[in-house]
C-alpha cells in the first residue's frame, strides 16, 4: 500500500502531463511571422451588374458594319491638304453611351456628307471619333476609332469611296463641352467630319517637299 502512495501521485502527474501535451508549443528561436497569415475570407462584394454573357459566335448588332472591315486609307495620300472644319460641321453625328451604333436619326447627316463629297471629287474627308470623359483612357481611344470607322463604312454604303476617307480617334481629349453632366457628355460622343481640299499651292502629282 505504501507503493500505492507513490504510484498514485505519479499516475496523477502522468495524467496531467499527458493532458498538457495537447497544447501546441512554439519552438524556440522562431520569429512569429506577421506576413502570410491566412485571414478570413473577404467580405461579400456589393451587388453589381450581372456578369457578362457567355462567349458565343460573333454577333454583329449594327447592320451598317461590313463583315470584314474596310482597309484603312493611305495617310500619305492626304498630306498637305487644307482642312475645312466648318463645311460639314452641321452634320456631326452623335452616339449612345459606350456604343458605336449609328442611330437612324443620324442617317440624314451621313447622306449630306456623302453628297458634299460626291459634288467635288477632288476633296477628301477626315472623320474624327470622340468619346465622353467617363471611360478609361485607352478604352476611349479605341472606342473613338471604332466610331469613326462605322461612319466611314456607312458612307461607303452611300457610295463614298472609303479610300477618300481617313479616320482619327481623339478619345476623350477633345470635348466640345467641358461640363461634367449628361448634357455635355452627349455632345462629346460624336464623329466630326472635316472636309479636305487639295492644296492649291501644290500642283497635282507633285510629291510634298
Amino acid at each position, binding site marked *: 500500500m505504501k*507503493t500505492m502512495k507513490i504510484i498514485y501521485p505519479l499516475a496523477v502527474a502522468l495524467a496531467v502531463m499527458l493532458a498538457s501535451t495537447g497544447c501546441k508549443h512554439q519552438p524556440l528561436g522562431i520569429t512569429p*511571422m506577421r*506576413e502570410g*497569415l491566412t485571414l478570413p475570407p473577404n467580405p461579400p462584394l456589393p451587388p453589381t451588374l450581372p456578369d457578362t454573357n457567355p462567349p458565343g459566335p460573333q454577333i454583329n448588332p449594327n447592320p451598317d458594319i461590313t463583315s470584314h472591315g474596310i*482597309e484603312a486609307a493611305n495617310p500619305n495620300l492626304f498630306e498637305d491638304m487644307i482642312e475645312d472644319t466648318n463645311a460639314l460641321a452641321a452634320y456631326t453625328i452623335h452616339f449612345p453611351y459606350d456604343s458605336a451604333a449609328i442611330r437612324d436619326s443620324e442617317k440624314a447627316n451621313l447622306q449630306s456628307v456623302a453628297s458634299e463629297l460626291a459634288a467635288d471629287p477632288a476633296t477628301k474627308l477626315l472623320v474624327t471619333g470622340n468619346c465622353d470623359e467617363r471611360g*478609361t483612357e*485607352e478604352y476611349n481611344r*479605341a*472606342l473613338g476609332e471604332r466610331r469613326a470607322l462605322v461612319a466611314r463604312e456607312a458612307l461607303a454604303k452611300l457610295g463614298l469611296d472609303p479610300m477618300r476617307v481617313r479616320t482619327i480617334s481623339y478619345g476623350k481629349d477633345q470635348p466640345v463641352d467641358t461640363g461634367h453632366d449628361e448634357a455635355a457628355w452627349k455632345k462629346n460622343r460624336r464623329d466630326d467630319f472635316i472636309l479636305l481640299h487639295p492644296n492649291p499651292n501644290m500642283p497635282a502629282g507633285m510629291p510634298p517637299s
Partner: protein
Amino acid sequence: MKKTNLQLAVILLPILFFAVAPVRGQNESAPIEINPTITIGLTPPIPVSLTGFSGEVLSVLKFDLYVQGFSFVSPDAAQYQISGSNSGNIIGHVTDKVARKEILSRSYAGASLRREAHALSDDIVFAIRGKKGIGQTKIGFKAQSENGDGEIFVSDFDGGNPQAITHDKTIVSAPAWVPGRLALYYNSYRLGNPDIFYNNLATGEARTIAAYGGSNISPAPSPDGSKVAMILDKDGWVDLYVADADGSHLKRLTKSVEDESSPCWSPDGKWICFATKINERRVLAKIPADGGAVQRIPTPGAPNPTEPDWSPDGKWIAFTSQMGEFDICIMPADGGTPVILVPGQDPSWSPNSRTLIFTKLTNWRYSLSVLDVFTKQVKDIGRISGNDSQPSWAK
C-alpha cells in the same frame, strides 16, 4: 519498503519522462502554418519605428516603406526599429527586436539626399524581407494640360525628378516602359495621326513603330523586349496586333468587329491579356502571344473591366472595373474572384508584384497614387505636371 518505493520511483520517473516528452511523430499537430498565399487587401503591415530622421529624408523613407507594406509605430511597439540621422551623410540602422540583433548598419554619401534616402529604404526592405525594394525605380506617365495637349514624362516612382521625354505639343498617350531597358514606347499625334513611337533614353535612338492608316494606339512591349503588342485598325477593324520590337513582321491576332484595347503580356511571354467586348459587354480576355483562340477571363463581381496589367511574378492581374466610379481590382491570374481595392484606374505593377501605381480622379483632375495591394495602404503622389495619368512602372 522505502527502498523499494525509491527504486520504483527511479524506474518509473524516466519512463514517465519519455512517455510524455514531445514526440515528433505523425500524430503531433504541425506548428502554425504560414500560408504562402498572401490575402489581397487584408494583410497586416509590418510595424516599424523611425527615429532620428527629418525633413525630406524622413518623408521619402515613410513614403517608400508605407507603399511596401510597413506601418509606423513607437519603438516599443515596433517589430523592427529603424534609426539613424541625416545631418550630414545619411546613416541608417535597423534592429530586429524579436531576434534582438542589428540587421543593417550603413551610411550613404555622394548623391542627392532623396537618392540616398531611397537607397536606404531599399536596404531596409532587403534587410527585413530579403527582397529588392522599389525605392530606386522609375515610372513613365502622361502629363496633359487642359486643352488636351500633353507630353510623356519619366520620373522617380514617387514623382521626384520629372523629365519630359517628348516635346510634341500635341496629344500623347500610353507610355509603356520596356522591361530591363531605359526605353519606352508611346503614342503621339505629332505627325497628325495617332502613331506609335519608341525612344531609348540611354542611346538616344528614336523610331517610328506604327504609322499606318487609322489609329495606332496602346503599345505594350513583351517581357523580354523582343516584341511589341499594339492596337491598330489598318485593316478596317480595331484589333490586336503583334510585331517585332522595331515594328517589323506585323501579325494580326484578333479579328473582331468589337474594339480591343490595353494589351499586356504574361511575364512568361506566352499570353497577351486585353480588354474587349463580347456581345456588347466589356470583358477581359487573353490570347496566346503567337496567335490562337481568344479566351474570356471572367471577372465576377467586377463589371466593365478594362486596362489589365499582369504582375511580374505571374500571379495576379490588376485592372480597372467600372460601377459608376472606377475601381482598382486584383484577381488571381489563373482565374478567380477579383477583390475591389480602392477607387482609381489604369494600374501598373512595380517589380515587387505587390505595389502598384494608378491614376486617381478627384474633381475631374488626374493624379497618380501608389498602392500596396496586400495591406491596401495607399499614398497619393500629388500633382507633378498638369493632369498626370497612364503610369507605366519600369521593370
